[in-house]
């Protein structure tokens, strides 16, 4: 082999080696780009599923105007007992989500809020139930195990008479801070939660209106908290209710189903209370 041929051969080998390196590098870039793209797409899908499900949870919570806050072993509810709701509107929400918003959000969205259109807002927290009957102005907390309560109630009216409940040596521990235009009543202690609801109540009369608080045996369940507002006129009756369990309360959700599927990402469950 001549000198020229040998040089040409070496140059060819170098050129092929460089091209090999570049091809390898471009292949690496291509793969890393694809991986990056897929990773981001997966992340975006997950983020969007969380975004859409959070959006609907926020809408339902805003509709009911019940502020729900989880704090370790305690869940806090804030509500106006004398509030009113048009439940036909909730049916129109359902139609909007399933017919209009599904197309806007992309993916497969299905919201079933039929369990909430009966005039009652039901929020489940670790199998306990918070229930607000808007038509009859009754709040109930139905426990499946021991719950203690802190009640802060504020009524924008003057009472005409008041009956204070009787405390026991054991039972459900209740702290009550009750304020109205006459002043504030504060006390705490054990209430016998196995007594009938008609036997022991904290009752405040406002002329023809009445607000009654019980911790009692309701539908064979002990320790049910019942706040019954018998109102004929409009004034605010703000209820701030803390229910404390022996274990951590991890989630609170409405009695409504939410399914949202976006390619490989999905949320199938209840509408979270926020």
């Amino acid at each position, binding site marked *: 082999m001549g000198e*020229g*041929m040998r*040089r*040409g*051969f070496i*140059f*060819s080998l170098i*050129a*092929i080696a*460089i*091209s090999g390196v*570049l*091809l390898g*590098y*471009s292949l690496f*870039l*291509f793969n*890393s*780009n694809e991986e*990056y*793209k897929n990773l*981001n797409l997966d*992340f*975006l899908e997950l*983020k*969007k599923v969380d*975004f859409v499900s*959070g*959006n*609907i949870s*926020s*809408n339902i919570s*805003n*509709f009911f105007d019940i502020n729900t806050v989880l704090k370790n072993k305690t869940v806090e509810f804030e509500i106006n007992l004398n509030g009113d*709701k*048009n439940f036909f*509107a909730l049916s*129109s*929400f359902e139609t*909007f*989500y399933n017919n*209009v*918003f599904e197309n*806007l*959000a992309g993916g497969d969205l299905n919201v079933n809020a039929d369990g909430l259109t009966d005039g009652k807002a039901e929020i489940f927290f670790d199998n306990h139930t918070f229930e607000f009957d808007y038509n009859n102005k009754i709040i109930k907390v139905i426990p499946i195990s021991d719950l203690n309560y802190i009640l802060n109630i504020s009524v924008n009216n003057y009472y005409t008479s008041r009956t204070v409940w009787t405390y026991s040596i054991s039972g459900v521990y209740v702290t009550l801070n009750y304020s109205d235009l006459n002043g504030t009543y504060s006390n705490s202690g054990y209430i016998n939660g196995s007594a009938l609801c008609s036997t022991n109540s904290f009752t405040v009369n406002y002329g023809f209106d009445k607000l009654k608080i019980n911790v009692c045996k309701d539908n064979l369940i002990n320790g049910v908290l019942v706040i019954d507002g018998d109102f004929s006129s409009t004034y605010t009756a703000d209820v701030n209710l803390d229910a404390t369990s022996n274990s951590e309360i991890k989630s609170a959700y409405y009695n409504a189903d939410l399914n949202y599927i976006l390619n490989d990402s999905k949320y199938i469950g209840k509408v979270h209370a926020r």
Partner: protein
Amino acid sequence: MKKGFVITLDLIIAILIVFISVTVAITFCGLHVKEKNYFPLQILAQDVSTSLEKSNVLTNTIANKTSKDLRVFVNNLPVNVCGAIIVYDAQQSTVSVEKRECYGSSDKISIYRSFVYDESIYYIRVILWYG
């Protein structure tokens, strides 16, 4: 015999392969950069729409029949981001604002978010693009 290079067939093929490789590599590098920027914009659009709802800007817009707060919000988007926000009731658009002096023409992304005011449902479309 003069000194010089010997142009052989395999050298020509190798040069061609190098040229193609460089072109492919540059193309992929370009794609890499372009697609990377698309994702933060999506996240930003979600955050913008959530912030607008949580800060009551949307309900104030409907309640007070004014786009003032919405306009302030959109004009305070990051300097390199352009945006427009359209508010719809169940049937049609009611309010529309766009960031002023923003003429970028990159790909636009949009996201929808619903919100509740006075027991009625509304929704917004947030459109963002790089300026």
